[in-house]
């Protein structure tokens, strides 16, 4: 006896239609979902408007803020006395915790050659408080800048930080230009 099951024409058409409708509905659902999440714009903060108030560290819906310090290296002076790395009037110009400004130790430095030091941001440790950015802008070249890290941002419909930003520095930017950095060439460098 032949056990091989043969499709009848009606059965084949019914199955094909069901699969087609199912695939179509799935595609529509995926498309709608994707469009609602991604959109064409992303949240970003304008560094020229930012006043480093500290809200970014506490207002983001993420437990550790998606706003991070970015180092625009082509603006950096590579100073020994870095006002973004060292607190005001440090006891010594070294890496001791009591001399450092960053509350989470997110900035590290390495000697290059006399008299230059290279500064790097450990993104995982940065909470976006902006203390280093404030001091770097006040006394240095302004190479440390706050930006939303787009790979960590949830792109909320209503950005919680934007609602509390006192300088209206947050706005939606085009997905193709997701960062607003000031600087000579505005290169982004992450540690």
């Amino acid at each position: 006896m032949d056990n091989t099951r043969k499709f009848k024409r009606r059965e084949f058409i019914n199955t094909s239609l069901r699969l087609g409708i199912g695939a179509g509905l799935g595609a529509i659902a995926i498309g709608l979902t994707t469009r609602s999440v991604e959109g064409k714009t992303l949240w970003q903060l304008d560094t020229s408007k930012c006043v480093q108030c500290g809200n970014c560290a506490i207002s983001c819906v993420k437990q550790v803020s998606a706003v991070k310090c970015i180092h625009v290296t082509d603006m950096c002076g590579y100073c020994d006395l870095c006002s973004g790395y060292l607190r005001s009037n440090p006891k010594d110009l070294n890496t001791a915790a009591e001399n450092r400004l960053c509350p989470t130790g997110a900035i590290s430095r390495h000697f290059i050659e006399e008299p230059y030091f290279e500064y790097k941001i450990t993104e995982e440790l940065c909470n976006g408080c902006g203390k280093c950015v404030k001091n770097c802008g006040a006394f240095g070249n302004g190479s440390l800048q706050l930006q939303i890290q787009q790979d960590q941002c949830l792109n909320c419909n209503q950005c919680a930080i934007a609602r509390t930003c006192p300088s209206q520095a947050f706005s939606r930017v085009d997905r193709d230009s997701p960062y607003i950095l000031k600087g000579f060439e505005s290169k982004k460098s992450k540690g």
Partner: protein
Amino acid sequence: MKQKLEQNIIPVTIFIGCCFLFFWLFYNPVKSFSEGVPGLDNRPARSASSEDSVVIGEKFISYVPAFTTSLTGNWPQFRGPGYDNISREKIKLIDHFPETGPVILWKKDLGEGHAAAAIYNGRVYVMDYDERKKADVLHCYSLTDGTELWRRSYSVVLKRNHGMSRTIPAVNEKYVVTIGPRCHVMCCNSVTGDLIWGIDPVRDFKATVPLWYTGQCPIIDNNVAIIATGGAALMMGVDCATGKVLWKTPNPDSLKMSHSSVVPMTIEGKKMYVYNALGGLFGVSAEGNDTGKLLWKVKDFSPSVIAPSPVKVGSNRIFVTAGYGAGSALYQVTRNGESYSAQTIQIYKPAEGMASEQQTPIFVNGYVFNIQPKDAGTTRNEFVCCKPDNFKNILWTSSTTDRFGLGPYILADNKFFILSDEGDLTIARFSTSKFEVLSKAKIIDGQDSWGPLAIADGMLVLRDSKQMVCVDLKVK
């Protein structure tokens, strides 16, 4: 059965308890933490230096050996003849720039830096750094047309560090004394450029080269060069004729050289040299048998970087200020018999009152004038005025329409001449009641126009980070 269960519960409980105990004892909840200790940046214990091989003043070129001039105006050192940034020449200066623009007499390309000019009898002296030849170069130019008369130089290796040159020579009719970026002190004949002597304070007196290189400008007092070296000597007086160290002030507190300069002052009838070193402010006797003796010192205002020099405000008060968040302090020096002491009157942060990051304020007619630093809050970079009885009370400002960055300013012919960061020169009427702009013009295109101004015979010499310009301000 029940008995067997009870027999097992006790050892199982003990076992679980031991597990918890071991876990508690050996689990390190902060194992991902790292200690913040010195040395994590791989800074070498002692950086390589070529200082020992420097031969101060080794090279000389004379371009115009027979130069003569009838000019007699002087701006002989940092902050001019009176150490107060005020020109007292009786030459009428313009209120407004000509419609055709400022009269530029000459321009000179210089090495990157902020070293400004001293002027003496028609000669302009500039301590430059030639990056291509890797040499400190003392240029002597003609004030009227910028012709280079001679240059004396010596090889020393420097790297760019927010500019390289920062100091102003001190000149009199016989001598010109310079301090180079790495603290090398050189004395030459101010007319011929002949080398007289050189001293290396780092090698000979264990001085420390300040961050971003030397900013201290030397002074000459009665043909004695006064240098605050730090290290083995707090301050010293060097005979310009011989190079012999006439006196040295001990430095038991190991104070270091700052970017500030020594200022002669007479307080309580005693002439003294006042210096704001890294670690404290002090006064050294400048006359009599005790010349060089430390008279007083205070250490409660001790910023990491100090660029402005001390300013005497009133009969016995000294105002000091510094940038990078430090703020300012006001002291009163009093005499008790043969001893002196300094009492703190005010100490405050830059947002609370008058402060400066780079330039030294002007005290005149009982008022103090200054440009506020970047961290002064709403008055940042504005030209402000206050009375010296309370530096926290700013009387007026130039407002947000006139901000000058870290630029220099000078008072001449009853007018302030204020240069902005970007090279705009503002002429403002001298007033203790308001800021009144008379005229403004773009003088120089570059950036960081921070070098102090010098004026003599109605000609103003200024610079940005790479170029020096002479502007004729005389009324025609």
